[in-house]
């Protein structure tokens, strides 16, 4: 195929995900140029980008399935993960692992259910995950109203710590990114997922476990969202019922900016991390020069449109 050959060459020449790091670097240099505190900005951006990156890696897996797959239930899964983990922990240090397990498990169940809905109802993933997200949000609200969840003191302290100079949450995010990246490259399910996104009929005819790969992508997306929610609750001093609401469009935006192919089949884990960093470095740059939130959000939108247009251009060439 000429198409895949040119795509390969363009990937070798300039990986799409590299742009997100160049943009993040530019934002950081800009912060230094306008006289901001560079190390403080980088540290804060690393911490906040971590939650976005973890949730968005899941979004990337679902979008890799192709055919316009997106996971709209990530915010709800995050909120439920946060509420459940805080409830299970109940402020007791020895229950911390159980709390995280509950969050990951609940997210996994949501993702699994999403995949089943898409298969059984034969509706677009967008609608299936939208329907399930409303149900999940209700469950989270019903549980969350009864409790005032705050993390055990030991956990709250631990997530604020630094490991080898980096915020510990960003180290966790990086580890997860590497794990998923290796899984996509080296495992049968990972390779199948990419093949499915490029051409699901061909993948199925080649005897690849297409359905298992889909199921795994949705389930992992939910589980990562649940984990991100629990981690964010621990970091920000407790769960709140709108904890996940900002991540609906942000998670998709980060995946697109990071260079993952919108049509599916070509994930870019490194790009997700880079784009998350870029988003938060951009925030701190615009805060340093005292621009309002409006300009920042407007710029984010223009960046997304530019990236989507740019990707289409390289495809046409």
């Amino acid at each position, binding site marked *: 195929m000429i198409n895949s050959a040119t795509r390969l060459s363009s990937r070798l020449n300039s990986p799409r995900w590299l742009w997100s790091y160049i943009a993040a670097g530019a934002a950081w240099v800009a912060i230094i140029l306008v006289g901001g505190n560079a190390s403080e900005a980088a540290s804060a951006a690393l911490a906040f980008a971590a939650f976005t990156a973890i949730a968005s890696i899941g979004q990337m897996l679902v979008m890799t399935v192709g055919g316009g797959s997106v996971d709209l239930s990530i915010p709800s899964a995050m909120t439920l993960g946060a509420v459940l983990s805080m409830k299970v922990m109940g402020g007791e240090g020895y229950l911390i692992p159980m709390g995280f397990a509950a969050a990951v498990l609940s997210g996994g169940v949501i993702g699994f259910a999403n995949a089943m809905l898409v298969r059984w109802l034969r509706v677009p993933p967008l609608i299936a995950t939208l329907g399930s997200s409303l149900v999940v949000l209700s469950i989270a*609200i019903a549980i969350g109203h009864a409790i005032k969840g705050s993390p055990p003191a030991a956990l709250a302290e631990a997530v604020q710590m630094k490991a080898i100079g980096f915020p510990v949450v960003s180290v966790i995010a990086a580890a997860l990114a590497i794990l998923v990246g290796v899984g996509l490259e080296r495992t049968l399910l990972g390779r199948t997922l990419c093949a499915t996104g490029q051409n699901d009929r061909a993948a199925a005819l080649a005897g690849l476990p297409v359905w298992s790969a889909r199921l795994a992508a949705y389930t992992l997306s939910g589980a990562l969202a649940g984990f991100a929610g629990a981690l964010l609750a621990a970091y920000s001093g407790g769960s709140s019922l709108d904890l996940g609401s900002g991540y609906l469009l942000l998670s998709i935006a980060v995946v697109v900016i990071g260079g993952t192919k919108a049509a599916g089949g070509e994930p870019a884990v490194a790009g997700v991390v880079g784009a998350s960093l870029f988003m938060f470095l951009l925030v701190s740059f615009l805060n340093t020069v005292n621009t309002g939130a409006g300009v920042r959000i407007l710029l984010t939108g223009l960046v997304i449109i530019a990236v989507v247009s740019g990707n289409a251009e390289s495809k046409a060439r």
Partner: protein
Amino acid sequence: MRLASAIRTRSALPLLSLALLLLLIFALQPRAMTYRGLGLLLGFSAPVVLATLAQMFVMTVGDLDLSIGPFIGLVACIVATLPAISPLLTVAALVAGVLAYMAVGALISWRRLPALFVTLGLSFVWFGIAIIVRPNPGGEAPEWVENFINLQTPVAPIQLWIVCVVGLAGYFILQHSKQGLLLRAAGGGAVALQRAGWSVPRARVLAYGLAGVLGVLAGLALVGITTSADPDIATRYTLVSIAAVVLGGGEFSGGRVSVPGSIAGAYVMALADSLLAFMNVPADWQVAAQGLILLVVLALRAFLRSAP
């Protein structure tokens, strides 16, 4: 057999769902049938229905609009803020909004971009501008807008009349005009349309333009009801409108949508909350109702389609 095939027509299922929902509401709360009761029941329905029709036109050409909610929020912010400075500026801003919508339609078509992600970016653009226009909630709707939406119309509340008029106009544009044929053809068979010498970009610009106009109307109605605005006021309309069009029998692949079905779908989404309130379901669980109704109706549709 005949029943099954009748139900399979595009708008039958959503209309039946709506009828069932209304029947339950009226049975539980007969006072909802009065003029006043209906007015309260339909509280915010006009903006939701108008947003749904906007989404429907974009879905007709096979795209999805993730930016309609924030656009309606921006319109509300403009209308609640700018008239105090200059009425002319307000009109210019709204016209610019519709033109921007059309330009995006052209961009998507000519560069063959995925609409989902372009409108995702656009949603940030609208939201950002809305925050610049109105950094904190407040403002004041112009008096005529407020008076219009509170008009005591004969027979049925004004919001129902608005939906009737706009819905009929939408129906005729889509089903009985040459432009509507162009729209449906662009979604159903873009390649065939192009071979026949028609312009797909033109269809898309038209669809996005109509969505922009309907978005402006929805924003006007919304700000009339709430009398003030904030940028986040209509964000959730994006997903509600997509769900309503799909409930109404619309297809993601484009070309196949239904005006009466979409309107019924929008009312189902809007009234689900009221029904649960009448049934004394705790407020916590009311969000779930919209999700469950969506999933149940879609399951029913999948079942009816697979039935022989």
